[in-house]
């Protein structure tokens, strides 16, 4: 896995545009993400974190601005190309997990493989392998309703990883789990980073900041600071990381 490089330019996302209830979730955000790094998108509730990582994860489209992934402008992609991107490169862990209710853990994990034509036995094996890695080998047949919050999150992580994505995106991953699970999660993220996966994690939990190579600080839909925490030199930086956001307000 080589990771992926994001270039985000002047991205704005407005909900209910043109109505009295218009919400500007993101305003002219410009920033870059680098391969193999853990980027933490940090900010208080309502700062636009989820919106930004949804755009990075190709789950939504910006109202204006561009996002380039590995040099390709993904904001210009048609829906089939975005779906291909989500399938082949991106894994997403949702804040509320978004597991299919009533479906056993192994099926939830292997669900992204269904349209790829993988046979049931192979899918089950792949799911078992991942769930055992997350200490859920004994929960293969349990639906989400029979799992704890931490277990559900691990199922969701396993599902996000089932396609071996280059990019893993997690939305508020610590908000629904206890401390022990948080430790496990941090270990998992570190391990993935070690394998070259590019991670984007949105959070308002300071504990995750310690894990980050870089922290994007958001407030009120604006990028107010890019904080580089890693002392190691960045690979193939092409001009190096911006110390202050290109289009955001100065801290």
């Amino acid at each position: 896995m080589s990771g992926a490089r994001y270039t985000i330019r002047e991205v704005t996302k407005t909900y209910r545009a043109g109505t009295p209830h218009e919400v500007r979730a993101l305003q002219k955000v410009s920033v870059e993400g680098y391969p193999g790094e853990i980027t933490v998108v940090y900010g208080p509730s309502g700062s636009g974190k989820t919106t930004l990582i949804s755009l990075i994860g190709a789950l939504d489209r910006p109202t204006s601005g561009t996002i380039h992934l590995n040099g390709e402008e993904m904001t210009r992609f048609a829906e089939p190309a975005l779906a291909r991107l989500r399938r082949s490169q991106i894994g997403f862990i949702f804040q509320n997990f978004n597991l299919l209710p009533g479906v056993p853990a192994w099926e939830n994990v292997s669900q992204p493989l269904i349209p790829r034509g993988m046979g049931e036995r192979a899918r089950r094996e792949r799911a078992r392998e991942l769930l055992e890695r997350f200490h859920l080998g004994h929960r293969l047949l349990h639906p989400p309703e029979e799992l704890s919050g931490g277990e559900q999150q691990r199922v969701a992580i396993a599902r996000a990883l089932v396609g071996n994505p280059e990019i893993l995106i997690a939305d508020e991953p610590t908000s629904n789990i206890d401390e022990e699970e948080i430790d496990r999660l941090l270990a998992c993220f570190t391990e993935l980073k070690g394998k070259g996966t590019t991670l984007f994690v949105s959070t308002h939990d300071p504990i995750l900041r310690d894990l980050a190579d870089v922290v994007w600080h958001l407030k009120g839909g604006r990028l107010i600071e890019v904080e580089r925490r890693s002392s190691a030199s960045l690979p193939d930086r092409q001009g190096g990381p911006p110390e202050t956001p290109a289009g955001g307000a100065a801290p």
Partner: protein
Amino acid sequence: MTETTAKKGLHPHWNLLRFAVDQILRHRLRSAVVAAALVAILTPFLTAMAISEGVRAESALAVHEGADFYVASDQFGKNAPIPLRYLEEFARIPGVERAVPRVVGRAYVNERLAVIVGLPPASIPPGAGSILKGRPLRDGARNEALIGAALARHGGLQVGHAFQIPIAEGKTFEVVGLFQPTVSIWGADLIYLSFADAAEVFGMEGQASEILLYIKPGYEEQVAFSLDLLQMVERGRIFLRTQNKDLVRQYLNRGFTLKAGIFTALYAVAFALAIPALLVVSGFGMSERRREIGVLKATGWHTEEVLEVVFWESLLHAAAGAALALLLAMAWIYAFNGALVAQFFIPEIGLLAPFPVPARFLPLPFLLGFLFSVALTLVGSLYTAWRAAAVPPVEAMR
């Protein structure tokens, strides 16, 4: 793992079908409601089509078993009795094998309206039915009756019983046999009498309701020509009204096709009205489905893959609904004798037919019903699923 390697040699469509089956089983309530809606729409349609086909088949059989020509006289454009003196003339026409006089009328027997047919006993067609009890009518015997089993059951008549026909005062008939008609719709309320007795009952001495002509194969045109010739020779003393087998068959077919057509048309309207209802029903649990579609899209499913699952679901719903409707239609006919539907195709039978309503389940109406169901469920579910799948996943999951 890349998309291409995963797809190589494997079966994404089979996987999607399996996933659709799982979805149906998982959303049992939604599936049950959709199937129930389809069953409610389809069952009366399949019942009606089966009865229509059954009646048509029996009619065809009756025509096949019947005479080649039915000749009556014409009065003011309607059938009228024909004098028996024509019997011998008709019998002399080259190609005529037999000429048989027949009297047909209706009368109450034990407070039940019966169809009384008078024929020379030897001329009662062997294919008309089978004797269940007793014996057939004997040539030359008088005041004997052969009664349809259903009429006997309802009228409380058994072999050896005597009964009277109110319009034939003073005459008493003895039931000598009970028969099960081959064609239930015509034969259930039938009483066979000798020709002489029936003519007496209806005051038609010296006449017949019609004369049946049985023709040697290949002589139909010649006999028809001879009847026309006879008409000319009579110079207005009688107008013959002739119906041949093909004409009767055409009348029957046209009648049933019309009735089945009217019923189908009514049903097409009902189907059209059912579309909005099924839209509501198949959109049942739509918010949950919309969120699920969002999750699928977010995890890399393509829109067409989501729609394929919905298509399989609709197909399976339709197949289940149509199969269940077929079973219920069979139950409706065989357990409840087609109550409420049969009267549309068989006149004057009342709420519950006194005889086993004929039915034939042909593949075509079932196929039509299945296709209607597929169309309905697809209209109901595919559009809403497409709407959910076409928006960004975040929006669908919201």
